[in-house]
């Protein structure tokens, strides 16, 4: 009998391992490597949030909480959904988990039977299709190109729906492209969904607070409240409050589904860390100014990066609405040879050569199911970004 279960073999092998290993090796060898590959804010968690965590420890909030999260946090989440989107959830319709990822895991593993399909617009965070596969479902990938701003059209969605479709997994703003949908852009998609009552919607809004130039990402239920009995609205503290390490994600959804997710979570991890939950209450209910400060910094960085990348020969960089990523098209470099003599046939060749020759770590597009691109995270200081982009320009200019 082999040790490893079939379900694990269904998960695609990580495409970023070679990249991560090489970056680590170069750093260990003393090379100056600028990493633009991390998916987390470079800011520290705001002080008021840390203080709330410490106060919770002092109060002895170190015991098991309800599996779905403390009542205080679930109430704070209700208030957040009401305040930000006008969506009314009761605390029973809220689940708190160890990161947004666990919310996705809970929802998909609790509902997907073998052969069920989940529609996923790509480029996408590869955990979506992996978790679908793990749950024995079939990911149905819809490619959304730069020509539509990396957004899915209503026609594409309509064409992807079959009688076996169980979920649409929607990420707004999107990792890795930064593309975001406002209410007007979301409306045609919700109209399609209204015609297909068997399709459920999972919306991952974790980057919602990071949008620029006055753009306002909308969430499915504020656009179409009638979808409420088949929508999971997911969010979390990681990106908005620079709390990745605390591991707090949450979601609102219909009671029977939330109950099923709660049951699965009760058999996999139980509650998220009680202290992190107390910190999250402060994040959601305390002063919100830090969000705006961080947002402004990100916007400046985005503008800097997009401008500098578009000056690199062979690179075409779309200016996205949100998140802290850009996803430049590098196909203009394919077929060329780098100054170091490396032949560029794929996006992975490009990112590996960029790392080897210029010491800049990024992630190639195939890791997000969209080859021909690469992802840059600009959650790094302006100086480092400027230096990294200068190196990318030199790298591209040196190709022949």
């Amino acid at each position: 009998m082999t040790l490893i279960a079939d379900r694990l073999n269904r998960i695609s092998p990580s495409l970023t391992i070679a990249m991560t290993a090489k970056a680590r090796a170069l750093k260990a060898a003393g090379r100056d490597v600028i990493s633009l590959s991390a998916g987390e804010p470079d800011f520290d968690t705001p002080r008021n949030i840390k203080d709330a965590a410490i106060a919770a420890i002092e109060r002895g909030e170190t015991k098991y909480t309800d599996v779905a999260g403390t009542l205080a946090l679930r109430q704070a989440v209700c208030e957040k959904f009401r305040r930000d989107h006008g969506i009314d959830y009761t605390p029973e319709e809220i689940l708190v988990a160890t990161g947004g990822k666990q919310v996705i895991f809970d929802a998909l593993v609790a509902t997907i039977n073998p052969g069920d399909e989940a529609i996923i617009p790509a480029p996408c965070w590869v955990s979506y299709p992996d978790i679908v596969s793990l749950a024995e479902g079939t990911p149905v990938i819809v490619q959304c190109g730069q020509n539509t701003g990396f957004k899915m059209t209503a026609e594409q969605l309509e064409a992807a729906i079959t009688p076996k479709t169980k979920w649409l997994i929607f990420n707004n703003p999107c990792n890795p492209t930064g593309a975001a949908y406002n209410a007007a852009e979301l409306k045609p998609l919700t109209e399609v969904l209204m015609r297909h009552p068997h399709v459920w919607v999972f919306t991952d809004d974790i980057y919602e607070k990071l949008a620029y130039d006055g753009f306002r990402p909308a969430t499915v239920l504020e656009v179409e409240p009638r979808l409420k009995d088949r929508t999971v609205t997911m969010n979390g503290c990681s990106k908005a409050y620079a709390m990745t390490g605390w591991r707090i994600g949450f979601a609102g959804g219909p009671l029977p589904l939330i109950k099923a997710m709660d049951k699965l979570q009760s058999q996999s991890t139980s509650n998220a860390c009680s202290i992190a939950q107390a910190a999250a209450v402060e994040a959601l209910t305390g002063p919100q100014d830090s969000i705006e400060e961080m947002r402004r910094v990100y916007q400046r960085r985005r503008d800097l990066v997009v401008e500098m990348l578009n000056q690199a020969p062979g690179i075409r960089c779309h200016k996205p609405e949100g998140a802290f990523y850009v996803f430049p098209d590098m196909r203009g470099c394919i077929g060329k040879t780098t100054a170091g003599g490396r032949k560029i046939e794929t996006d992975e060749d490009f990112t590996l050569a960029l790392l080897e020759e210029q010491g800049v770590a990024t992630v190639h597009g195939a890791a997000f199911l969209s080859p021909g691109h690469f992802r840059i995270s600009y959650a790094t200081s302006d100086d480092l970004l400027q230096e990294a982009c200068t190196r990318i320009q030199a790298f591209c200019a040196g190709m022949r």
Partner: protein
Amino acid sequence: MPALAARLKDVSISASVVMTMKGRELAAKGIKVISLASGEPDFPTPAHAIEAAHKAALAGDTKYPPQDGTRALKEAVQRKFRRDNNLDYALDEIMVANGGKQCIFNAFMATIDPGDEVVIPSPYWISYADMAKVAGGRPVPVTCPQNNGFKLRPEDLEAAITPRTKWVLLNFPNNPTGAACSRAEMAAIAEVLKKHPHLWVMTDDMYEHLVYDGFEFCTIAEVAPELKERTLTVNGASKTYAMTGWRVGFCGGPKDLIKAMVNMQGQATSGISTISQAAAAAALDGPQDLVAERAAIYKQRRDLVVAMLNEAPGLSCHKPEGAFYVFPNIAGCLGKTSKGGRRIETDTDFALALLEEKHVAAVQGAAYGMSPYLRISYATDTESLREACARIQEFCRELS
């Protein structure tokens, strides 16, 4: 509502959670309920662990941790296994999860294919069986009778093993009985396991430091080193250091298994709260005198509870070696009627009537796969325990 996934169909919600909630409902009505239902220490987290958490938060240790745990915590775990269990694990043979529960969940999800069997000594923490079911496996309970001190008999284990057995689970000291195995008893179990090289062994040693009267804890890979290459040793900070809410479990096992489990956890939650990891490392590395001091208090409580329960007509309570539970047999109460007019046909009837009439919450043995028993947690202050046992005595005396 989407039809739920078949894998959740037979999965139950934890009975101890149900009883705890019922107790809370009564308490909310102003009734003084004594809860003996919960499986967590009533002590606070040690001060040095709390201090480490403060420092980690203030130092900005708030970013994504590695999926398998921070290096600092994994090294502390490595030292713990060496110090307490005489077991040498390399760092890539160790992983950290959101509670011991997630270690077990990861292992089952990473290895169980449909129809694989998991042998579980009974009575047992019901989550073992539920997690096996979520993974598509079949739990195979093996009765550990009261007349054998609720311990696993080698011949019963032998009879339960089939060619489909993937895992044999060991949990001594045991939840719910408190039974623990001596080195000789563990060696006899190991002899059986050695004869069946196709199966893997999981030992949940969460209660290792809670043993009394000079009893010496032992773990299977230490007793039978030749089994180490197919044993997963699970432990955690929750029970030893009163850190349930922090959610830190860890385990040691062969590299290939750990790698698959990390892969699984990467899809479910990623790494666990950084603050909790810093606290757990401090707990493992810090002064250990608190552990023995608390064990001495638990021992006094166990002796009190066993003595008082054995004075209640119809109850017979075995005195176990460890954990913080006793598992009295209530067969002598069946067929009777309570003072409040409730007919007692099962241990569930008993537990519900006891809660309604005497406001003592305990969990029926049926929830652990063995009837007619009651699980009583003595992780409660001595005064409350004395009062609760007096109420149980009164409840039993009033049966007619």
